[in-house]
């Protein structure tokens, strides 16, 4: 009956109004996260940079690293995000042992890599694999902000491409969570071409009519915005995430142009037509599950694969 249908109604919680503007200069993508993964567990308390409330670290951790007072989204590690998202014991990690070389013999790169491995407890800046979200199988990738600001070198590019190619083999949808300062300078032109490589792989995925959802999290900039992060069939952002091509500090230095308050936030990007949905972290699992589910049918009409 008609009435029964209504009871099932569920809507994505969309924070569409840019009610809480954030200054573009603080924090910027070049800066370390407001509260790094390493800092947070050590301190008992933490001050929310948005509402100023002093909060129990434990409570924030339990609330998906979202402020319990104002819903400010703190940065979160790839593994912590994975845990919030997928069905228990469903994750199978891929290519976990891939590590970077130093093909340019770039000053200081080797040390930076070791530092990043220690800080992030990961071998490289992206976590890939397959899992299920509310029962729906999916290929996943997560950038790790604590690994050289999520920058994309050969390993990040290769792991993402492999994940996409395997999704094609397995005929599964792909969800990628981006957080990145851009292409990794230390691998020079090889990093730059990872943009083309990941985009090309996504072109193959699209040819196969497989769904790709790109989730942009704070911060996503540069070569990652200008490649896989922008190519989703559906683009989701977390509230208040800073997303752009050029970082606000570079724009200020290069163009002597001060960005208006709120520029490059998720809400700004949505107003400018660049983002489909803004979804709070606590709603992400449900939103993705529904979108994945509604795309499972498919391929009945339209160009058959």
């Amino acid at each position, binding site marked *: 009956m*008609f009435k029964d*249908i*209504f009871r*099932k*109604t*569920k*809507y*994505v919680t*969309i924070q*569409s109004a840019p009610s809480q503007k954030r200054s573009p200069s603080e924090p910027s993508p070049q800066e370390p996260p407001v509260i790094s993964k390493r800092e947070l567990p050590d301190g008992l308390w933490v001050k929310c940079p948005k509402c100023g409330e002093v909060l129990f670290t434990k409570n924030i951790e339990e609330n998906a690293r979202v402020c319990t007072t104002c819903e400010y989204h703190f940065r979160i590690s790839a593994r912590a995000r994975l845990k919030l998202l997928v069905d228990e014991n469903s994750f199978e990690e891929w290519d976990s042992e891939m590590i970077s070389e130093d093909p340019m013999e770039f000053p200081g790169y080797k040390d930076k890599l070791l530092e990043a491995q220690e800080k992030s407890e990961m071998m490289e800046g992206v976590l890939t694999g397959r899992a299920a979200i509310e029962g729906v199988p999916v290929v996943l990738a997560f950038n790790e902000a604590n690994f050289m600001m999520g920058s994309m070198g050969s390993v990040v590019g290769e792991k993402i491409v492999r994940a996409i190619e395997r999704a094609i083999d397995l005929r599964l949808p792909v969800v990628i969570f981006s957080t990145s300062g851009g292409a990794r300078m230390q691998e020079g032109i090889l990093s730059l071409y990872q943009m083309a490589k990941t985009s090309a792989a996504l072109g193959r995925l*699209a040819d196969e*009519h497989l*769904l790709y959802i790109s989730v942009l999290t704070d911060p996503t900039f540069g070569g990652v915005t200008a490649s896989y992060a922008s190519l989703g*069939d*559906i*683009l989701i952002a977390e509230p208040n995430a800073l997303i752009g091509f050029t970082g606000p500090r570079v724009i200020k230095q290069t163009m002597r142009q001060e960005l208006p308050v709120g520029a490059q936030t998720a809400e700004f990007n*949505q*107003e*400018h*037509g*660049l*983002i*489909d*949905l803004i979804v709070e972290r606590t709603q992400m699992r449900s*939103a993705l599950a*529904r*979108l994945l589910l*509604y*795309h499972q*049918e*498919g*391929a*009945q*009409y*339209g*160009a*058959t694969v």
Partner: protein
Amino acid sequence: MAQLFDFEKPIVELVQKISELKKFSAEKDIDLSQEVSTLEKKVSRLKKEIYGNLEPWQKVQIARHSERPNFYDYAPLLFEDFIELKGDRLFADDRSIAGGIALFHGIAVTVIAQVKGKDTKENIKRNFGMPHPEGYRKAVRLMDQAEKFGRPILTFIDTPGAACDLGAEERGQGEAIARCLLAMAGYRVPVISTVIGEGGSGGALALGVGNVVLMLENSFYSVIAPESCASILWKDTSKAKEAAAALKFTAQDLLRLGVADEIVREPLGGAHNNLHQTAEELSQVISKYLVRLRSETPESLREKRYQKLRSIGVYQDKDQDKFALDLTKGLD
């Protein structure tokens, strides 16, 4: 009812009379139940008479009623779930067109709808339901995904027309609408277009290239606004009523002309008198056609939509046999 039209006054006056009579009967303790009953029957007759024989201009007034339900009123009643997706990925998110993925009778569909505001503030936000190029480009973006993933498309038309300002001209309003028409004509998924209020000119047509075109009983769908038509014909916008009659744009006209496929019933007096009833009618009629269309092949859906468009038009061809010759000559 906040907004009352002249043609509704006899009904309202009679209803008021009955109310007075009842009050009088109660106060004076006189039995007037038979008189009341007679009058109530008369109200019922009058309603059918008036609402059943609305002139085109009266339908325009109902279609533009300030409380007429818009897409956002229907959405939670029509769909089990609706995830709105925003933006053209180029310039802006146009709030006069809503789009997204919905669950309709258990089927994932792509929905595109024009949305007018309900008050001045909302109307400013939604530009009075007049989309800019970015709105049509959002529509094409989302419909292209429907095609990619094999989802049926439901469009809901409710606009006075496309935006007509400098920004719209600068960003290629004509191109944006044309691309919409081209795209919709080519899809291999079922497309059902429903006019739920005003169907104003090219701005409405942009979402109207369906395999099936449905119209709510009091909606209209016109090549030009009746006021503009009156202004051109008689240099007098106050003759909109006459223009409305000349343009033959009611649901009933369009059914006769073969443009509309079915009329969706509204409650007496218009959809605003009973949102739930209207939504249920909409739900049933759309579902009926969706079931039919889903049984067809992708190629047939595209071909039949083309043939439907192909057949629209009335003309005399004195020279029908000539082309066979021309073509032979052309092929040498």
